[in-house]
């Protein structure tokens, strides 16, 4: 280093050097992909021989159609329902796990299994279990509740999305449990014991002491799950109820359409998904920052 550089400048340079690799991946690939997607959704696609940039008509026709809003609604509804369920189950599981009980070690293995396994396996399991020809349906027939698979209430491939939600919940409950468990270990038992001594019963302890403390952890885990669910493709594709599809599946269909101009429409869908997800993240971060500042943590 030449002695003329001030220590501050040197520190800045060194910092930049350390951030560079991650930033380059992020900016070039991720940012590049986003920009490209945006440009394309605005009509910039010379490789299909289309270049009407900037052309808001793709968004216009997308957002102008009722189908889009139905799809968005479905996407958000499945994601929300699954996240909510996973959240409740995962938190309950984490709370159970911090208590000592027999076989705890074994459960600690078991509950993490879905976390380690790809979604596709979860889908396969859902098909085998919940399908009209699946295990549950067969058991129902075995005990004489139904006589033909058609009588079995449809779980997969309906617009209620039970199958999709089941897979998400199956896969994400452990994730939530793991996050919450780590946070629970972090906050320790002190505060809940203090509350007990102050006379709080179990319910009060949970709602007024434990939950507020683990809430940031829960919410960030939920956010990750929710965002994933919004963008997930496999489960709604295989287990969904068909038209109207969730947004990622809609995008996929546009991309697989013989009509190339529809790919641009697909890009508009993709960008819309990203927009929804980004908005949610931004809102959460803003809220979190505000809360942290209020509590004087930063």
């Amino acid at each position, binding site marked *: 280093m030449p002695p003329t550089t001030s220590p501050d400048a040197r520190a800045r340079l060194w910092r930049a050097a350390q951030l560079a690799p991650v930033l380059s991946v992020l900016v070039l690939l991720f940012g590049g992909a986003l920009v490209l997607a945006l440009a394309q959704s605005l009509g910039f696609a010379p490789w299909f021989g289309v270049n009407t940039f900037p052309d808001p008509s793709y968004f216009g026709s997308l957002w102008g159609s009722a189908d889009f809003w139905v799809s968005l609604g479905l996407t958000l509804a499945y994601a929300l329902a699954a996240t909510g369920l996973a959240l409740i189950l995962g938190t309950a599981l984490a709370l159970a796990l911090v208590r000592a009980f027999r076989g705890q070690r074994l459960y600690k293995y078991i509950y993490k299994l879905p976390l380690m396994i790809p979604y596709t396996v979860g889908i396969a399991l859902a098909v085998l279990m919940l399908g009209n020809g699946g295990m549950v349906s067969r058991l129902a027939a075995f005990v004489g509740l139904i006589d033909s698979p058609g009588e079995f209430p449809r779980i997969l491939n309906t617009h209620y999305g039970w199958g999709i939600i089941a897979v998400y919940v199956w896969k994400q409950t452990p994730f939530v449990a793991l996050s919450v468990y780590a946070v629970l270990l972090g906050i320790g038992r002190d*505060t809940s014991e*203090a*509350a007990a001594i102050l006379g709080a019963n179990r319910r009060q302890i949970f709602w007024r002491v434990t939950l507020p403390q683990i809430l940031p952890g829960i919410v960030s885990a939920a956010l990750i799950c929710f965002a994933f669910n919004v963008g997930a493709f496999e489960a709604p594709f295989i287990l969904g109820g068909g038209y109207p599809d969730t947004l990622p599946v809609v995008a996929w269909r546009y991309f697989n359409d013989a009509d190339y101009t529809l790919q641009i429409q697909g890009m508009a869908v993709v960008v819309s998904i990203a927009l929804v997800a980004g908005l949610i993240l931004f809102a959460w971060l803003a809220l979190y920052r505000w809360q942290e500042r209020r509590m004087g943590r930063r």
Partner: protein
Amino acid sequence: MTEVQLRSVAKRFGDEVAIEALDLRIPDGELVALLGPSGCGKTTTLRMISGLETPSAGQILFEGRDVSGVSVQERNVGMVFQRYALFPHMTVEKNVAFGLSIRGLPKSEIAERVAEILGVVQLSEYRKRFPSQLSGGQMQRVAIARTLITEPDVLMMDEPLANLDTGLRGEMRRFIRELQQRLGITTIFVTHDQVEAMELADRVAVIFDGRLAQYGAPDRLYRKPASLNVARFLGATNLVPGRLRDPDLVDTPLGTLVCPWRQGQTGDAVHVMARSELIDIGTERTAPTDIEGRIIAREFFGATVSYSVACQNTHVNVTEQARRMLELGAPVWLKLAPEHMWIIPE
């Protein structure tokens, strides 16, 4: 305002014995310090009294009634945790109000009592802050206020001062002492700092390895420790081995000392304790029983000076107030008054 009694209470965690057997009576309205080295079972004892832990054996009585069937919530005890355990997501005010608000008291009454207690702990202006915005001493006081507001019958504090600066610690000690005297609440105070125990407590229970080693008033413990361990733990520096001779005489490496003894028999091995600050040091022999020595080290502590004196085959520490400074190497005479010595049986 409750008398607390422990009857042969024991606690095991799996194979590990935390408390062997503890008998302890904490009189109504007194402040008792549990004193002992780390891991001796102080926290465990408090947790059992509060009901957070169930004794493996023995009984805990409040006012003579066994409380084993009484849940934590119903025992009406208060506990200040070692690391305060303030609720990080609540303001000072909310923290303090917690105990009342879960009891469903009317808002106005809660507000009134919170304001009052915050006044007592001098934190009125901090009431909107979150714990992370407070200093250690302030958190401490919030924890105390939060506990006191529920008017517990028994107040427990688990090393409440361990995490404070020396200066603050003294201040908080005085604060706690004053408050306890004012409210007259039965208080159990855990510490592993003898000075703290001495200063604060009406009685001190010294616990070693899950067993009560001695229980009594601070000055009694300090002057008349029941065992070598207690003496050492309470900071006694001059513990000279000896052997009982005739009544009132003990043979030691310092010579034969005049020192009344009541228990034991001639010939028993004992230790003689002579606290360093109770030994007079002079540059001239004034009595035949004076012991000759030579200063080999000197330490200046501001208010006091400590000398290490070589006498015969042993070392004696002497502390005196720093009004004069004796020189290193100077020959000195030590006066060990019989009433300032104490015989500890082996």
